[in-house]
């Protein structure tokens, strides 16, 4: 693992290396070199199994974090590649030519986060939602509770308690 990271650092401009466990490493790379790093890992370092691609919404910094997790089945190590893209007009290079199933992940991200992957097959087809006309639902600024109350018909009588307050009142009713 250490040697692999040294080799990667020598070739690529990777930063923020966090090694949580012996067989798992998280690292950050800029947007331009992400796909070439993934291609390098797949072809040279034998990370042949694509685990997942997902996004994290850092709304405070106006950034989306994309996380690609790859797995090397020969030595059983996972490597997770983080890359930050801007939240206004988010766009990323597609990686569907490396593994075909990446197109499915990109289709989901396009629908749920609104991140565009130009050139990815079927990226504009609806995947999970049907006829959605609000902002993409996995973004942090989408309020699911407000949307539910406006759209569906909540049955009256539901009470929401702050658990801490509720337990305090129950355990110490006299203050």
């Amino acid at each position, binding site marked *: 693992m250490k040697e692999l990271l040294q080799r990667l650092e020598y070739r690529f401009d990777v930063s923020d290396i966090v090694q949580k466990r012996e067989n798992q490493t998280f690292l950050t790379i800029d947007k331009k070199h992400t796909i070439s790093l993934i291609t390098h890992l797949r072809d040279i370092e034998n990370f042949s199994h694509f685990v997942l691609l997902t996004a994290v919404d850092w709304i405070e910094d106006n950034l989306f974090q994309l996380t690609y997790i790859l797995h090397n089945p020969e030595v059983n190590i996972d490597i997770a590649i983080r890359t930050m893209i801007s939240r206004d007009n988010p766009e990323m290079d597609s990686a569907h030519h490396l593994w075909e199933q990446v197109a499915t992940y990109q289709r989901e991200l396009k629908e749920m986060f609104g991140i565009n992957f130009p050139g990815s097959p079927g990226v504009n087809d609806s995947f999970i*939602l*049907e*006829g959605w006309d609000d902002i993409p*639902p996995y973004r942090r600024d989408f309020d*699911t509770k407000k949307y*539910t109350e406006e*759209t*569906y018909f*909540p*049955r009256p009588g539901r009470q929401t308690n702050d658990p801490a307050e509720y337990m305090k009142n129950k355990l110490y009713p006299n203050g």
Partner: protein
Amino acid sequence: MSEINNKNTSGIEKDKFFAPENEKRTVTAPDGQIIEIDPLNDYFCGDAPRVHKPHKNKLFESFLNWARAESIWVLGFGTGCGSIELYPLLTPRFDAYRFGIQMAPTPRQSSLMIISGYLSVKTLKRVVRSYEQMQNPKFVMGLGSCTINGGMYWDSYNTINRLDYYLPVDTYIAGCMPRPEALLAGFNHLKKAIKEGKGEGANKYAENFEWYKANQKKIIKDWNMPDYNW
């Protein structure tokens, strides 16, 4: 009939959701014959559902109700996670067949629709279509607390909260998830109601048809089907 059909199809806006295979077109068959196809008018019936009044003879009506109650055929449509408890229900341990309950593969052969758990908007569209294809008399059973008030998913943007705003529900079974024993109790409750002549969900649907349709159309945003298509 054609008037109704025209009225029916004119309500559909040809927006981005309109499927190209539903458009009116002419096709040439392999043997050279030219056929005109208008799917929305050819395949669907535009007639709204009607209220079926009980038979004048009360004895005969009670006989019919007994027959309806003793042969409940369930549509095999696992809409949510509750369908996993239907496996034990239909196998030797709980054996629902002894109550006359049986799975039916298509909507037209079945009389009971079990909404097994949460119902996402995308499934609701299919459920409405399947329900309208079922023959009268038909019943709906809501399984799990998600159909009653949303349950675990009360704040989810994609699941409905109250099933009775979209379909007429005859029996609710509470629990997350309800045990097979609870399901059997629910079936017996439904049978009792049918025998007493209280299983009037289909008539309720016909009477309040516009209200149900308005609620359904409120959440199914890409309404690209006729209003009624049995």
